[in-house]
C-alpha cells in the first residue's frame, strides 16, 4: 500500500490556478487551515472554492485567490460574519453561487455519485434560483412535482483536516461531527488529508471506535501531518477554537493597517513561524 505522506508544500504544489477546490469542515470548525495557509503562500490564483465557509474563505478572498465561491454561508460561528469575506463580497470582487445548505450537500452527493445533478425541494420559491440563473428545475417523471436540479459540485481537489490518519490515507474524526468531509473526498479527483497526527494503521482504533473511521484511503491522494493544523478553528477533542485569536483576526480584518500587521506577523512566515507567532500572541495577551 502506498505511503502518501508528504509535506504541506508538496501536497499543495499539486493545486493549479483555475482549479475547483472543495474545503471541508463547517464554519469555524475543523478547517484545514495549515493547508490553506500553504495555499496562501503559493502563487495559485483564479480558484473556484466550494465550502461551508469559515475563515479560510475570508483569507483566500483577501489574498485574491478566489474567482468564484460556491457556498451556503460564511461564518466564524462565535462571530457571525467573517469581515474579510464580507468586504470582498461588498467590493463585488467574487463570482458567487449561493445555495441553500441542503442544496449544497446535494451538489456534493451528485458529484460523488458521478451524476449531473440531484433533485431537491429546497430553493423553490426563494431568490436562490433567480440569483443563480444557471440553476434549472426538473419535472418529476412520476407526478406533477418539479424540483430544483442541483448541479454536481465536481471538485478537482478537496482539502480536509482530521484528527488522525494513517500514511495510506485512512481518515479518522474523533469529534462530535464528521461534517461533510467524506462527501468532499468522494466529490473530488484528488483529496489532500491533513491530520493532527499520522499514526500506524494498527493504532487507528486506540482512541476511537471503528465508527470514527470517516473515509478510506481509496479517496485519499496525500497525507500531511499538521499538528494544530486546524488552528484557529476547532479540532475537537484535540483542541477547541482559539477564541482570543479569532477575535484578533476579525478585529484586524476590519482595519487595513491592523490587517497589514496581522499578515506580516502571522501569514508572511512558514507554518512553524505561524505557530510561534500565535504562542507569542498568547504570551503577550495573557489569554489562552
Amino acid at each position: 500500500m502506498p505511503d502518501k505522506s508528504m509535506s504541506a508544500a508538496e501536497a499543495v504544489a499539486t493545486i493549479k490556478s483555475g482549479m475547483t477546490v472543495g474545503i471541508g469542515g463547517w464554519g469555524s470548525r475543523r478547517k484545514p487551515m495549515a493547508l490553506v495557509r500553504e495555499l496562501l503562500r503559493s502563487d495559485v490564483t483564479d480558484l473556484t472554492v466550494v465550502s461551508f465557509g469559515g475563515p479560510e474563505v475570508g483569507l483566500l478572498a483577501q489574498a485574491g485567490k478566489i474567482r468564484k465561491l460556491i457556498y451556503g454561508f460564511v461564518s466564524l460561528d462565535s462571530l457571525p460574519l467573517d469581515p474579510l469575506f464580507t468586504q470582498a463580497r461588498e467590493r463585488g470582487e467574487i463570482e458567487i453561487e449561493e445555495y441553500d445548505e441542503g442544496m449544497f450537500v446535494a451538489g456534493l452527493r451528485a458529484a460523488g455519485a458521478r451524476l449531473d445533478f440531484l433533485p431537491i425541494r429546497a430553493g423553490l420559491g426563494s431568490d436562490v434560483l433567480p440569483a443563480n440563473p444557471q440553476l434549472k428545475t426538473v419535472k418529476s417523471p412520476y407526478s406533477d412535482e418539479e424540483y430544483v436540479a442541483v448541479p454536481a459540485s465536481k471538485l478537482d481537489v478537496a482539502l480536509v483536516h482530521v484528527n488522525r490518519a494513517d500514511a495510506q490515507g485512512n481518515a479518522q474524526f474523533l469529534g462530535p461531527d464528521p461534517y461533510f468531509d467524506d462527501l468532499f473526498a468522494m466529490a473530488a479527483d484528488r483529496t489532500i488529508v491533513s491530520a493532527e497526527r499520522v499514526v500506524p494503521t494498527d493504532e487507528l482504533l486506540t482512541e476511537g471506535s471503528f465508527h470514527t473511521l470517516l473515509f478510506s484511503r481509496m479517496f485519499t491522494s496525500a497525507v500531511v501531518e499538521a499538528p494544530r493544523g486546524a488552528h484557529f478553528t476547532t479540532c475537537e477533542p484535540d483542541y477547541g477554537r482559539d477564541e482570543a485569536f479569532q477575535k484578533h483576526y476579525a478585529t484586524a480584518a476590519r482595519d487595513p493597517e491592523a490587517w497589514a500587521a496581522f499578515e506580516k506577523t502571522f501569514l508572511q512566515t512558514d507554518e512553524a513561524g505561524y505557530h510561534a507567532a500565535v504562542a507569542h500572541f498568547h504570551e503577550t495577551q495573557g489569554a489562552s
Partner: protein
Amino acid sequence: MTTAVTDTAASTTAQGTATNAEVCIAACADTYLESGEVLAHAVGLIPTIGARLAKLTTAPDLVLTDGEAFLMSEPGPLGKPASAGGTIEGWTPFRRIFDILATGRRQSIMGASQIDAFGNQNISLIGDWKKPKRQLIGVRGAPGNTANHRVDYWISRHSARIFVERVDMVSGVGYDRAAAVGDTLRFHHIGAVVTNLCVFDFDETGRIRVRSIHPGVDPQEVIDQTGFAIDVANVPETRTPSAEELQLIREVIDPRGLRAREVAN
C-alpha cells in the same frame, strides 16, 4: 383590547409580573403546541428557552438538540453542548439534520434581517445581489426549511428596517412565493412571527396580521415600527406565562437570567 386577566393574576401572585422577555418566551413555546414528536430547532436565546419551556409543559414529545451534534432527552445547560451535562438520546451531526428536515420531522424558529408582509425572510444580504451594500451570513438553510416544515420567526428588535415592504433576497419563502410554486411546496407553513412588541400570524390570503400585542406595549409603536400597513384594532394582549411557566423559566431553564440580554426588562 382584552386582557388575559386570569393568567396575569396567577403569575402575579406566585412569581411576580412576567417580564417582556418571559412573555416572548411563552409566545415562542406556544409555536410548538401542536408539533408532536419532531425536532425543535430554535435560533437565538429566547426561542431556545421557549422550546425548552414547551418541552417541559405543553409539548413533552418534542425532541431537543444541544445545538451541536446531540439530541437531549431533557433540556441540558443553556448555551452549552451536551458534553457540559444532560442526557443524550441521539446523534444528529449536521448531515443528518438535512435528512431529517426533508422528512418533515422538524420545526424551526429562525431569525430574520428582513421580513415582509407575506413572510418572505432575508438573512443573506442587504442591497443588490451582484454587489451587496452589506453581505450577511448567506441563505443558510432557510430555503430548505421553509420548503419542508413549519417555520416561525423571532425578531428581538421589532423595527421598520426589519419589517419591510420587500426583502432584498428571499431566503425563507413567504406565502405568496410558495403559492406561486404550487404543489411541490405543499409542506410550506409559516406559523407565527414573535417580536419584542407583538405576535403576528398570517390570514387565509397569506398576509401577515397582528395576533396579539405584548402587555404594556403601545399599539401605535407596533404601527410605527412596522414598514408596511398593519391593523391593530381589536387586537388582544399577548398571554403572560403562568406561575408554573415562570418558575420553570426562572429556576430551571434560565436561572442565570440570560434572557434579559436579548430582550431587556
